[in-house]
């Protein structure tokens, strides 16, 4: 099981990176919580049903874990040890962000944890049905929310993230 999990995670680790980069701010947090997400995925792996899409299952576990970590951090303000110099736009970035990429990233960053999850899934080409299943809401509600978040993002981009 360990080998199978390692192989699957290795091939799909992009999801873990994306969630960490969207939900956590400092470089230390990202590194540490990347580990936490992998541990949570491993713990949840026995529940993975091969009939469902791996990426859907991974997003569900990672989003739950990320929202959970943020909630836990809030109970322990002493442990949220942000260092000012530790804040960067995107850690370990491989290339400079274009203006539009920077604006999109900033726009997504201003959203609530829930909206962030919905729009990430939408932009990653998940169907309304899959998003609805991951979030636990109806498909019609998913559609309404996506339209609202999209307009928010587009407005934010057009206004230069002001």
């Amino acid at each position, binding site marked *: 099981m360990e080998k199978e999990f390692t192989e699957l995670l290795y091939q799909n680790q992009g999801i873990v990176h994306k969630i960490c980069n969207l939900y956590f701010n400092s470089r230390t947090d990202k590194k540490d919580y990347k580990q936490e997400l992998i541990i949570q995925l491993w713990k949840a792996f026995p529940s993975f049903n091969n009939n469902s899409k791996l990426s859907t299952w991974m997003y569900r576990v990672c989003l739950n874990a990320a929202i959970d970590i943020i909630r836990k951090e809030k109970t322990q303000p002493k442990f949220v040890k942000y260092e000012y110099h530790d804040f960067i736009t995107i850690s370990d*970035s491989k290339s400079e962000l274009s203006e539009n*990429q920077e604006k999109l990233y900033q726009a997504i960053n201003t959203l609530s944890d829930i909206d962030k999850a919905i729009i990430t899934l939408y932009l990653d080409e998940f169907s309304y049905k899959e998003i609805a299943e991951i979030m636990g809401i109806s498909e019609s509600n998913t559609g309404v929310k996506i339209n609202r978040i999209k307009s928010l993002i587009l407005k934010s981009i057009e206004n230069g993230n002001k």
Partner: protein
Amino acid sequence: METNELKKIWQTLSNENLIDKSIAKDNIERIIKLNSSKTIEKLSKKLRFDYLTNIATAILVLVITIFATVYLNNKSHSLPIQGYAFLVLVISYYSLKAVSINSKLKLLNLSYNTSSILDSLKKVKVRFEKISTKESVIIYASMAILTVFANILINDKTDLSNFNVNSLKGYVLIFSIGYLVSLPFIGKYYFKKRFSGILTDINNSIEELNSEV
């Protein structure tokens, strides 16, 4: 800007910048052998230590109280009322602290990572409320026992036919009754206040998901 353009920007952004240096297979194997990440583990350890310290202190003070009572009784003396009141308050303080830390520990272990986001939030909320009720009952039962114990000791040699409300023993009795009546409410209030931020967050997220906007 159109939706397709948004998706295109996202694809470039996520593929080129949001995906960091690849985690090697060896590292994945090493990580899954851990129970939790460094930060969560450190937090857990600290909370467990604080919890045990507070419990040990409360028990120690309780043992000292019992020992002092028995010892002084053997010498035909008794501990002054103020002494008992002080000891009860000290035990209450450490017990409350221990209960509060225990809630944090339970919170730290709460995760429903395979449910949908909405279900996870609802489950966490229900567990939170259960913890709150259970802990209020525990606090109330322990404090009730301590208060009754202190009152029995205080009134041990009191001739109840001469019992006067307008006396120190009367005041202690009134204080004890008030203390016992208000304790469940104080416990609930304390818990809610302590975790009000998180409960509000959970409620807001549930509301946000349920709302049709």
